[in-house]
């Protein structure tokens, strides 16, 4: 992949949301969490494949995982957080992309400008999602790390 001659372009610059609106942050997060999830999905399919090899193979896999110590649970917690954020933000993205909601309809711009696509509807959904995900993530943390939160 030859170096991109354009000024400050490429992966890092595309994922760098500094100075921009919150939706650009959620774009970067969505992409990072997506990559985490696809990585975990592949590992998870291999892991569950061990189930079909009988209980001894399964217990060996579990022991191999446990040998990672706290890293395993923290790692799973990160994956849980990624899944929560990716899913919740995904709902917002589908609302935007597939159903064209949250963007507002065309207006005649009046100065001082505030684009409706980043307006109240959009921001309300962005912040509710972030709140919900954080709450659920804490619950996932308690459940995974401290064994609490079992109903």
């Amino acid at each position, binding site marked *: 992949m030859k170096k991109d001659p354009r000024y*400050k372009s490429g992966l890092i610059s595309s994922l760098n949301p500094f100075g921009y609106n919150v939706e650009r942050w959620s774009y970067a997060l969505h992409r990072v969490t997506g990559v985490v999830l696809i990585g975990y999905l592949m590992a998870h399919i291999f892991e569950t494949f061990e189930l079909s090899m009988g209980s001894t193979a399964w217990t060996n896999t579990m022991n191999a995982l446990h040998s990672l110590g706290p890293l395993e649970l923290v790692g799973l917690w990160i994956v849980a957080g990624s899944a929560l954020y990716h899913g919740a933000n995904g709902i917002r993205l589908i609302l935007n992309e597939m159903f064209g909601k949250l963007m507002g309809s065309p207006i005649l711009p009046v100065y001082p400008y505030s684009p409706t696509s980043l307006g109240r509807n959009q921001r309300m959904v962005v912040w509710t999602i972030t709140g919900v995900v954080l709450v659920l993530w804490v619950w996932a943390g308690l459940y995974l790390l401290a064994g609490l939160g079992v109903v």
Partner: protein
Amino acid sequence: MDKVTLEVVRSGGRRIRYDLRYRKGMTVLDALIEIREKLDSSLGYRHSCRMGICGSCGMTIEGVPRLACQTQISILKTDVIRVEPLHSMGVMRDLVVDIAPFMAMHKSVKPYIMRRNTDERDHSDREYRVLSEEVRRFLQFDYCIMCGLCYSACPTVALDPAYIGPQAIAQSYRYMADPRDEGWDQRIDLLDTSHGVWRCHVAGACSFVCPKDVDPAKAIQMARKEILKKRLLRRKARVGAQPVPLLSSGVVKQGVKPPPFDFGKGSVSRK
């Protein structure tokens, strides 16, 4: 604050600082002009209208693409202002970037009124009947001054130079939503490509930096909806606005009359 410093990224990445006296209401473009006229005549940057309507002076100021002519130094709340060329574009000299790819993307979406009867469009003397609310459906996206700020703010453009960019898609939707245009099907096929509208992931950075509130993010989602209408709902293109006959020849109202001619009417050739 009566002194301000501009740290400008010059060709080759050199960062050079210029100290200037601050005047009330001074914009970044005023500062750049003062630098070239008084301190360093080799500073390369583009500018023309100085009132935010021509789109020449786009650059990255304090990390965010802005128009230099309308960015007041006072709102930047810093004494040292970092000025860099626009991101995701080739630097040709100092702050002058190559906008040819950006202009080519604009041309690639065929941004002009398409009609089946092109002769009527180019050589008749009628006007198409368009109501005000029909104009409102696309007028916001016609405010685009092609400054390239959205193009340089978009994360997908930063990653994928083949992506046609928020500006081009917004212009394509502007013509899709224009009642006079009959190129709906063609425009959908132009956008529905692997580097077209589907590469937008609603980061909203384009609408965030747009100096004219063209809101390209909104236009892109509406363009997407048009594509889904066609693919999923099997919607068909509607017929374009029809030419309206000139007003009836009967005189409705007597207007002001100019004084009578002093000579015979008609053009006496001269010079």
